[in-house]
């Protein structure tokens, strides 16, 4: 769901609960800021949405008032990345429809594990390091905390395909350019992402 207005995400579905994150309406890339819905609850006539948040610590969730969010958009895909097997597999309705070898973070800059989601898709940018296309995710580096724009982990192509598979990046998930282009035909922003 899109974040329509600056909103507080709280520990519990209550206006008195501690704020765990403050959400803006745009990502650092200028796209609409979206959250992944986990569940809903009504308390005293107020609808609350529990959502997965693009904040540190990774895997943070919080409760947001329904009126601060936009419409629901359902997705039927799920991307699973294994940092041990160096694979990315996309599932649609639970069935694998895509798989590719990947590069992940070096041991000093590990790709974070846990549950995240794909936030946006970037194209026609100027840096060949990221290949022809990149997806932004809600995952953030736990060590590169002073990285510009918040240290978000991307899923992108590369100008060094010979390094894949392996622990090669600053935390991002790298695919060979042909694979990232294939993935882009099958996966939309909003897709849940599990990194194991």
């Amino acid at each position, binding site marked *: 769901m899109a974040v329509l207005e600056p909103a507080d995400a709280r520990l519990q579905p209550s206006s008195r609960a501690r704020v765990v994150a403050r959400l803006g309406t745009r990502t650092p890339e200028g796209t*609409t800021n979206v959250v992944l819905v986990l569940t809903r609850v009504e308390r005293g006539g107020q609808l609350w949405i529990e959502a997965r948040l693009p904040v540190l610590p990774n895997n943070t969730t919080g409760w947001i008032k329904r009126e601060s969010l936009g419409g629901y958009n359902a997705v039927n895909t799920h991307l699973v990345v294994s940092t041990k097997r160096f694979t990315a597999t996309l599932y649609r309705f639970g069935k694998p429809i895509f798989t590719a070898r990947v590069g992940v973070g070096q041991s000093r800059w590990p790709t974070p594990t846990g549950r995240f989601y794909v936030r946006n898709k970037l194209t026609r940018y100027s840096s060949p390091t990221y290949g022809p296309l990149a997806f932004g995710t809600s995952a953030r580096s736990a060590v590169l905390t002073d990285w510009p724009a918040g240290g978000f*982990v991307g899923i992108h192509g590369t100008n060094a395909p010979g390094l894949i598979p392996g622990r090669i990046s600053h935390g991002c998930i790298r695919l060979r350019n042909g694979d990232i282009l294939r993935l882009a035909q099958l996966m939309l922003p909003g897709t849940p992402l599990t990194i194991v």
Partner: protein
Amino acid sequence: MSELLTLDEVDRDGAIRETMAAIGDDSRAGFLKRSMLATGGIVGGGALLAAIASPAQAATANDVSILNFALTLEYLEAEFYTEAVAMGALSGEVLAFARIVGAHERAHVAFLKKALGTAAVPKPSFNFRGTTENQAKFKATAQVLEDTGVKAYAGQAPLIDSNAVLAAALSVHSIEARHASWIRHINGAAPAPVAFDQPATKARILAAVAGTQFITGTPAMTASGGSPAFTG
């Protein structure tokens, strides 16, 4: 004769009563029981709808515009009911209503898209602002949407060029009227409060729809240019 017609006044030769007897058990309980087991498919009306299933039938620009107006409203209703059923906040007859009417509206969308072909407007994005997530809000909103749909079709029907398009529009209009009566009954409102409905202009309908703020812009989840700032 009162303004509200009785069956005796309308069915002077008994033809209506004869037809009702031939249909058999048409009690509400029986209908709902069958509907709760339904898969959501639509039965009947195929011949009439097939008459307009070719885009060539909606050849005039005027009729294309009217059908696209109808399609936008049907997109809205179909998505409203689909989302309401998925949210899980409905129960009993309200849930049955949402399932059945949702299936009808999805059928209307499919039919209009087929009739319009490449001229069909794309489906907008929606934010139903919690009205699909609370049974009381759903019931009130459904009544407004169905009453609005009835007025919209009544307002456009006299403007349609093609007889085939008109016939199809009337076949949808009567179903929307049934939906309106049903939700009114669920809500404890008079199913048919007046003898003559007032049509509404397209401008008035669009203003009413805009007032709900249900139709939204599509979230911008792609970007071009610049350089990604990911960790790399």
